[in-house]
């Protein structure tokens, strides 16, 4: 048996999040043989990230003062940092749009004794440390984890969700309202936009295997915007979606605009465009995206 220490050290730092990314990672066994897992409190009794970590996965957003401390410490001990999931890339639920009042009542309710303090907002991790690779998704599939860990350089990722969906776009099937989900039936094999669903797969980065749209649920954009929209201002991706719905449907513009103001989009698809407005954040190039 090879001595264990020859395998590269691998650590998983969970900031404020739901553990979904960790649960997904646990479904992809390949890394077990290729790495020496030195830190991942969900499955290993270890309370300290050791030195000389080869790959550090960071999940969750920066939500507490303790998160900042752990993130900086972990990154300083690691050669490569991979940001994983919606929260690490954009902060997560605290970034639902127009939530100023909610944010205030949340902060008012979050004073505790002897516990980490909650920050006024949730931050993506690249506000505090350099990130080598971004793996968006809520959560990323096990297959995407393997791609990020073993073959990031040669990764071939579908450009948009539609490429992997297989549902057919029909030019003559033009819904008049976005009420597909209320109809009580999903027609198989036909594009969900044609059926009056608010599906944003046309602008969303692929690679997920169209897990949601194939069984009949609209894409909510959890993989973030496709490459052409990276680092573009928020209106760019919204305009593109507006054009898609105008081209494919007869839905009134006011209803489309209302849908574009949806919390789904602010939580998921906007996860990059939000931050193009913030000078403190580095650009995220397509070379760094999985």
């Amino acid at each position: 048996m090879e001595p264990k220490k020859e395998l590269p050290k691998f650590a998983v730092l969970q900031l404020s999040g739901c553990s979904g990314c960790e649960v997904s990672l646990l479904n992809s066994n390949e890394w077990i043989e290729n790495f020496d897992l030195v830190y991942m409190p969900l499955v290993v009794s270890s309370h300290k990230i050791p030195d000389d970590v080869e790959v550090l996965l960071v999940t969750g957003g920066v939500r507490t003062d303790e998160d900042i401390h752990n993130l900086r410490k972990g990154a300083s001990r690691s050669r490569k940092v991979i940001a994983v999931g919606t929260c690490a890339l954009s902060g997560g639920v605290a970034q639902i749009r127009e939530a100023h009042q909610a944010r205030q009542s949340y902060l008012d309710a979050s004073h505790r004794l002897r516990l980490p303090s909650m920050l006024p907002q949730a931050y993506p991790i690249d506000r505090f440390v350099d990130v080598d690779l971004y793996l968006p998704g809520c959560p990323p599939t096990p297959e995407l984890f393997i791609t990020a860990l073993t073959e990031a350089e040669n990764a071939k990722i579908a450009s948009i969700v539609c490429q992997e969906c297989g549902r057919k776009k029909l030019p003559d099937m033009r819904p008049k309202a976005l009420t597909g989900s209320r109809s009580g039936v999903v027609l198989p094999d036909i594009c969900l936009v044609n059926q009056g669903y608010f599906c944003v797969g046309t602008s969303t980065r692929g690679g997920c295997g169209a897990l949601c749209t194939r069984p009949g649920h609209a894409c909510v954009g959890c993989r973030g915007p496709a490459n052409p929209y990276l680092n573009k201002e928020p209106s760019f991706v919204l305009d593109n979606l507006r054009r898609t719905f105008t081209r494919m449907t007869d839905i009134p513009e006011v209803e489309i605009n209302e849908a574009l103001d949806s919390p789904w989009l602010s939580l998921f698809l906007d996860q990059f465009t939000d931050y193009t407005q913030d000078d403190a954040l580095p650009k995220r190039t397509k070379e760094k995206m999985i």
Partner: protein
Amino acid sequence: MTTLTYPLSRIEGHARVVIDIYDDEVFRADFQAMEMRGFSYYVQGIPAEQITVIVPRICGVCSTAHQVASVKALEDIFDVTPPPLAEDIREVLLLGQLIQNQATSLFIFTMPDRVNASSLFEMEEEQKQRQFSMAQMALKIRKIGTDLISLAGGQFIHPIKTVIGGVTSGIPRQKADEMIKTIDTLLPTAVEMVDHYWELSMIMGDRIGSWGDDEPSYYLASTEENSLRLNSNRIRVLCPDGPECYNFAPYEYQDYLKIEMGDYSYAGVSSFKGKHVMRANSLARINLAHSLDMPIADAYLKRFVETFGRPAHAIMFFDLCRGIELVYALEKARKMLEADLEHGQTEVPYSPRDGEGFGLVEAPRGPLIHHYEVENGLIKRADFVIPTVHNMLAIRRALTVVAKRYVSPQGIDSELEKAVGRVVRAFDPCIACATN
């Protein structure tokens, strides 16, 4: 005063145990959640129909239960009844989650305590020469759960197939048959591992000299007496001395469960009728079950009751009950997959309307209720009634018992740190959910 702080691992989320000692005596043991998720704040004002996609994100471990509870709460408001086929597919989905969760708790979280390892993967290193590699087997059994969730829910974390009015699509025959084959192959392995776990637990109990003695408590489960149906409708309560003494609908929960926030934790704490300690999770369901209606699981249930009595109260029994439930869920899922889950009506149309509604499911950690108020099509208020919160008083009390056992005028026994971990893991708390 001396304060001992123990960070915790092999549980969901960020938490720690703090024990205060005055004059060589344990004054207080506390279980503290270290983060605050805040979903109940952030979902205020969002379109009601979008909440079913957002709230699974409360917790990646329990996302299935949140998704179904959320959909059921809106169905309650919109007055829509899903077709029977959809109810069955939701049950398969929840069984998948039970398999995933119990396999994770048994083999990834708590098995290392029984063999003095820091993780399942470290154990694997030591046991490579064994006939089968325990870690690989554990992950395979766990994967039956995640595959079932994918089959019935579309994806295994934050599933999407459960929608208001039903489910988006059925389970194809061919996929169901593949799943049945996998279960048939791995069920004997699961039984073998549960037996092994049971045996190691007995050895550990003998070594420690205790199974975690504690006072009797109330028990809370929404499963039925002769069925462990997880897509549930009512909550049952067992009184500390044995008989089932209350039975209530989700909309009545505030009459029975009092939930308060504390100063030292981001998680709430609930009590039964404002004063009593209660317990939810595996031991509550098993104490409240007379039959599981599945042959192998029923044999385990019989063995458990004959060995430990009913109701059983020791803390480590939670772990054994998870083993029984793992076997149950594998048997039950196999049986359900034999039926035709592909053809027939999977959903019905609905019209949104305002109102107040409640959605209940039996999550792996106990009864979970989503309680919403919808006004002008928007969420006005959302309360998440979380099973881990119902266990908080019981966790604290159990920690106090264990701290007293290992703290004396002669000093602090080094076993305390391990004991604290074992006690918390027996309750399998979920911090993300508890701080929603």
